């Protein structure tokens, strides 16, 4: 474990925790952005530059903005009636999260391959990614492009519903 990892982990975990706990939705979204940047940092740390930049471009540039617009359009800036920390809801949530976490912990600890260190010289090259995407991964690529088109049309249609009713 080195310093960069620790700093990035702190940023990421803090962002994630704030994002799910803060009452003020805008603050939650901004914390989520912090989290996204942390994850992008991890991608850089893992020599996956392209994924990192895509992460920033898509999540910070689009998803976070989208979330902000959703918050703005729903006039629901603060979730006032959230239950408190020691409510049954939160305790159940924490219990479930702890259960799943325990399972994951168990799985990771029980696997010997987990203790290996990073091999040197592993880096992702944009040209290689492009080549893979157009050869081995062309079917997922096409499917995803179709999915994106469908999602785009779907999102527009869903959100336009009211207007089309007026006409």
């Amino acid at each position: 474990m080195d310093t960069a990892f620790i700093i990035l982990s702190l940023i990421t975990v803090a962002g994630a925790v704030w994002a799910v706990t803060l009452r003020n939705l805008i603050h939650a979204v901004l914390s989520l952005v912090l989290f996204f940047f942390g994850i992008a940092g991890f991608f850089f740390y893992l020599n996956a530059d392209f994924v990192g930049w895509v992460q920033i471009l898509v999540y910070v540039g689009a998803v976070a903005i989208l979330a902000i617009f959703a918050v703005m359009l729903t006039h629901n800036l603060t979730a006032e009636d959230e239950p408190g920390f020691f409510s049954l809801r939160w305790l159940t949530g924490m219990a479930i999260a702890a259960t799943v976490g325990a399972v994951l912990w168990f799985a990771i600890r029980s696997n010997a391959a987990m203790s290996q260190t990073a091999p040197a010289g592993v880096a992702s090259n944009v040209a290689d990614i492009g080549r893979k995407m157009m050869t081995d991964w062309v079917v997922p690529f096409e499917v995803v492009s179709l999915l994106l088109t469908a999602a785009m049309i779907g999102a527009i249609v869903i959100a336009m519903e009211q207007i089309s009713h007026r006409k």
Partner: protein
Amino acid sequence: MEPATHIPWIASHLWLIPLLPFLAGGVSALLPRRCRKLSAGLAIGAIGISTLLSFCALAESILRGLLPHAGRQWSAMQTHEAWHWLTEFTWFSYGTTSLKLGFVLDPLTAAMATMVSFVSMLIFIYSLGYMDRDKNFTRFFTFLSLFAGAMLGLVVANNLLLFFICWELVGVASYLLIGFWYHRPSAAAAAKKAFIVTKLGDIGFFAGLLWLYHATGTLQFYTPDHTGALEQATALAGLPGIMGLSLAGTIALLIFCGAVGKSGQWPLHVWLPDAMEGPTPVSALIHAATMVAAGVFLVARTYPLFQASPQVLTLVAWIGAFTAIMAATIAIAQNDIKRILAYSTVSQLGYMVMGLGVGGMAAAMFHLLMHGFFKALLFLGAGSVIHGCHNEQDVFKMGGVKKHMPVTFWTYFVGTLALAGIFPLAGFWSKDEVLTAAFNWGGGWFHKGPFALGCIGVFLTAFYMWRQVCLVFLGEYRGEKATVGHKQVGHEEAETQHETVPGVPHESPAVMTVPLVILAIFSAFMGFSGLPEHANLIHHFLSPEHAPHHVNWFVIATASALAFAGLGVGHLLYGVKPLAADEPDPLKAKLGKLRDFCRDKWYWDELYEATVVRFANIAAVVVDLGDRLLDGVTVGMGLLARGLSFINDKFDEHAINRSFDGSCGTVRLMGRCFAALQDGRVQSYLRLVAVAAALLAFWFFLK
């Protein structure tokens, strides 16, 4: 096939032939409506260059196929083997495999491309005159170019997928053109009908395409290393398919579905006559050069698959023969000049398909090519008549047009005789080829049946054509507008197409008659390229590996006699005593109910209405009924349960004492507990999923 040492320039640039009309169409699609001359010029220029290129291809092919043997006996002229010039390119690579497309130049392509582009060019030129007053002139030429481009693309394709793409483009273009006057409901309906009915066949075609790809791993017709889909036909013939057919037969059958739809064969012929709603040049293009020819061409192109399966060929032959005779009978009782021609086309297509079915691929193609010329001629002539008679299409309201439109009459006359199969015009030779092939098909009534039907068809063809000529051109003009000044009503529609000068018919402008004359010359003399016996150039050219038939004087005599008989009967009925205005069809008296049966197209539309459409409706009703029934059952069950519970309640309260209440309470509590799991809250489900997944994982690890 010889090794691809030298490929002529045209063979490697074959793609230019379809590309040019496509480009012209694309550019004129962008032009504003006022650029009429530019768009027409583009379209005609593009198709003109395509025609030149096609002639180049034809010349190269003839050189390749025939010239090395020049100076020898005709019989020794043939090369006795099929040959192809191929160009291929990779569309896209997918992992290690790649999807290749390509173009092929062989005699079939060369002959077909020449006919298609040449006839299309003449039709384009003719349209200049015909569509002169239409305000959507630009759009019309855009669609025409698209149509011709798609058809030429299909002709030069060396790949079933490319073929299919162009095939569908032909379908789209025909949809757009049939529905060109989309503000008429009938035109819009006809366009829809044409599109949907042909799509029915295309489903089969597409299935066949996929199956072929699955079976052979390629969609190229021919490849340089002889692994093309068609070159594996014999191998496919050895594999089992469905319904006792071989795999090759199955695929051929599926592909034939497409041809049935596109070429208007029974049972999918119903769209073709309705397609007359389009402008007449479109009808000519559909019937002569492009759309319907595509179906026959498809079978000719994939002929090796059909050859590998005699059963399918038999089916093809019978369908063709049946269509030929059926359409001919319908044609004799029609009133609309274009409908008569439309059913004539269906009938002639039947001949072609029959020719294919009986093994005479060259004969069928010969008939297709010749038919392209004279049917284009007839349609354009009909268009000229309609144009001259102020959009009148009913033959009983024409008559005596001969003296007003001499050029149209004489060219139409040539076309009629050619279609009727009168010596020595084109139709005589090509129909003779088909009938000879049918005659030689085999013994027994089953194998002679198509021939017999074909012979009756010859009689009927001559009859209805002569009937038409008599009604339209001979006698006196019976139109309502015969007297000048009676033009107040019914002229609004006509305004879009030509000037509304009332009264007698008038000859069409030169831009329309010149194509007619050219087509007439071709219709008259092209037949000599297919003289029977050894001088049969077309046969040598198209299928060198099969020896042409010997002259069968019996067939020639029978066919000629029947054709003359048809003409004679027609003249007796309609020519000797020209009909007066409002006089009923004399055929009605002679045939009675049978004539009505024919006039109403054998009630196919009604049959489909009564079966296919009604089936869909009934199915919908049945499903709805089932739904209601289930609903009723559910409601009934509910009522029953309520009744039972009412009894139970009373029973519980009065008959059973409170000792049971405790256990009831427990049950209720448990029910509530389980109901709590189904509370409709998405998050509780998520919780359950998470816990369950965790437990499963624990179990998995502990095991």
